[in-house]
């Protein structure tokens, strides 16, 4: 017989064993649950498309329940025009009625979950049936007879506090799902949600990558098909990309331009002189400057019209670093040789025509002068005889007087024509580089004063004044040409201020040069034309300028003359009325 102590010990041992056994069971259950979660976690992580996620989900749920079907409703995102997607995953073949009932329940639960659903009918039309492969290969399996849903469970699919969809489980029998497994089911739904979100992001990434690749290829095709040459450099000025046209245009360099060497280093190593200019343009753009239409003669200098390129280059900025140093340069090259040929032909034509015009013009001027003098002499004689013979007609009524007036008009127009021809001849000289300047020393103020006097005689509405702010105005320059340019600017000032007004010619003395400005109160110049006003044949196109005569050469020649002296010219609009032409002239010419 056992003592009470012994029996107490046995009881204690039994309780210990029982408690130990319970803990062991609990630990085993936890271990089993963890193994289960680990297994399903791995299968979800390994899923690379949504169908693999469905397979993993089905396998995980079938470990917990025996059920008819599950479904995944994914909320449409903005990239997919908010169109929801429904995937129905049956565990065995379903009847049509059961399927319809499922969709009705999904639509109803989706409304509770705040997932926008149009209608159950539309949801049914757009749903996908993702049956496991074994169902497809076993057509002899009978269809489930049930038409009504016995049990249903809907669990939100959430990712980072966002409901991305809904997992639904269905069975034909009631009571299939229980509260004890609900937490585990929600855990599986969380795995599925994350896996589906990853798939969605991967699909989005793939779609974006394909789109980017397609855009890149399209851009590549456009660039390679461009008639213009396109050249791209990196931030060191090394050419990284040349399209076919650029390769063709720069072929004359006979240098491999894509040597991974910056152009400024490549240029000295080659015999190609124009590579320096190209490198200079690229460097300017790398410094942040946009270079427009720079001409580059890339042909042999001996050729009649060498290959001439027009280059525009702009800095390339990284989106995130717009304000710092460019990451490269993009340059566009155009072959303008044909334009140069046309320009040359035009220049030659202008030169020939103006020379040919000059000969008859000289004759017209000479003979007109001769006729004017003869008629003037005759009229003087008539006037002298008049007091003696009162019967003769008055001098003012003589036909010779009418002839004389006509001849004055011929003379005036011939002089106008001569000025035009001279402008054309000057143009030819400038174009051919034959504008010869005859330098001599003279006081600049004398020429300015003479020009002002001359302009004032034909400008009754204007007051032309001279403002000298210089002590010594001695200059070495081409007197006639300086007179020509000042006269030209003054003519314009008078012409483009039809209402009259003040015109001021101001002379200022600077360290090495003189600064001359001619200020008018005329119609001014539209700011968009300011950059072009010194181009040849350029005329400001506005309604007001139609009434003004001229062929657009005066300022072009003026600029060439000033630059021939080593000076500069520019124009700006005044604060109030009119504009100011300003130029500088060195005391002694700075010619290259």
């Amino acid at each position, binding site marked *: 017989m056992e003592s009470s102590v012994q029996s107490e010990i046995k009881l204690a041992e039994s309780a210990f064993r029982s408690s130990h056994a319970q803990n062991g069971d609990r630990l085993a259950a936890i271990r089993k649950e963890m193994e289960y979660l680990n297994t399903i976690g791995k299968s979800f992580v390994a899923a690379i498309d949504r169908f693999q996620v469905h397979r993993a989900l089905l396998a995980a749920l079938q470990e917990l329940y025996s059920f008819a079907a599950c479904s995944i409703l994914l909320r449409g995102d903005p990239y997919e025009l908010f169109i929801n997607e429904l995937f129905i995953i049956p565990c065995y073949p379903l009847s049509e009625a059961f399927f319809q009932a499922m969709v009705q329940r999904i639509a109803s639960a989706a409304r509770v*979950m*705040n997932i926008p659903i149009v209608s159950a009918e539309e949801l049914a039309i757009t749903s996908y049936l993702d049956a496991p492969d074994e169902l497809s290969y076993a057509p002899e399996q009978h269809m489930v007879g049930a038409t009504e849903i016995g049990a249903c469970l809907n669990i*939100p699919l959430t990712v980072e*506090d966002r409901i991305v969809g809904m997992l639904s489980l269905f069975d034909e029998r009631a009571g299939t*799902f229980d509260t004890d497994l*609900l937490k585990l089911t929600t855990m599986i739904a969380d795995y599925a949600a994350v896996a589906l979100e990853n798939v969605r992001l991967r699909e989005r990434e793939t779609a974006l990558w394909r789109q980017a690749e397609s855009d890149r290829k399209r851009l590549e095709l456009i660039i390679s098909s461009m008639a213009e040459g396109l050249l791209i450099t990196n931030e060191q000025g090394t050419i990284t990309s040349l399209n076919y046209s650029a390769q063709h245009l720069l072929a004359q360099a006979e240098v491999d331009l894509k040597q991974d060497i910056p152009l400024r280093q490549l240029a000295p190593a080659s015999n190609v002189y124009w590579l320096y200019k190209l490198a200079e343009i690229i460097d300017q753009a790398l410094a942040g400057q946009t270079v427009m239409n720079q001409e580059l003669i890339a042909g042999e200098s001996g050729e009649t019209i060498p290959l001439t390129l027009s280059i525009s280059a702009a800095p390339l900025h990284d989106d995130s670093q717009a304000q710092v140093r460019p990451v490269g340069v993009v340059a566009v090259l155009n072959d303008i040789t044909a334009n140069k040929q046309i320009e040359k032909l035009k220049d030659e034509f202008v030169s020939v025509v103006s020379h040919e015009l000059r000969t008859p013009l000289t004759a017209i001027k000479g003979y007109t002068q001769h006729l004017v003098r003869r008629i003037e002499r005759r009229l003087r004689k008539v006037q002298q005889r008049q007091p003696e013979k009162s019967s003769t007609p008055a001098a003012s009524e003589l036909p010779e007087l009418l002839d004389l007036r006509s001849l004055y008009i011929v003379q005036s127009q011939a002089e106008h024509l001569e000025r035009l021809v001279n402008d054309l001849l000057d143009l030819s000289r400038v174009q051919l580089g034959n504008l010869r300047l005859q330098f001599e020393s003279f006081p600049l103020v004398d020429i300015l004063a003479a020009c002002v006097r001359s302009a004032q005689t034909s400008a009754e509405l204007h007051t032309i004044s001279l403002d000298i702010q210089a002590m010594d105005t001695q200059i070495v320059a081409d007197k006639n040409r300086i007179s020509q340019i000042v006269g030209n600017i003054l003519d314009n000032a008078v012409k483009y201020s039809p209402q009259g007004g003040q015109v001021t010619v101001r002379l200022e003395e600077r360290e090495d040069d003189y600064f001359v400005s001619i200020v008018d109160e005329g119609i001014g110049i539209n700011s968009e034309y300011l950059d072009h006003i010194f181009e040849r044949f350029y005329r400001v196109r506005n309604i007001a300028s139609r009434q003004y005569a001229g062929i657009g050469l005066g300022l072009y020649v003026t600029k060439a003359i000033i630059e021939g002296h080593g000076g500069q010219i520019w124009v700006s609009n005044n604060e109030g009325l009119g504009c100011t032409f300003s130029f500088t002239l060195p005391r002694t010419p700075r010619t290259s």
Partner: protein
Amino acid sequence: MPHMSDHSFSVSREQVADAYLKVIRLIDDRVTPFLGKVTTRVLVQGAARKVMSTYPFLHFLVKMPYTDVTPAFMHEQFSGVTPTELAAGLDALLQECFAGLKELTGDLIAPPIYDEVTRQLEQLQ
């Protein structure tokens, strides 16, 4: 479910609102372990959408998660509503929340929570 205003004509609007906010939080506490923390928020939004035509003063809950609602903001939204009307509206909201919960999980978790909420509302009266 006992309607708060049935026996409490002396209860203020603020007391009604606070009482219902408490029971919604209770539902949230009970539902979260099973269906995650977003579910109750969405259930309340869905319920508000359903009842807002009858109780327009609950419209703000459609756009705004109830968890973001501060007492001051809620009292401002309910100004001008009688305690009886407010209790009726919030009760309808609660009923819709339970209807939604039943739609999702059937009778798995809704009945015990319903009973608990009923008890709590009775205590609060």
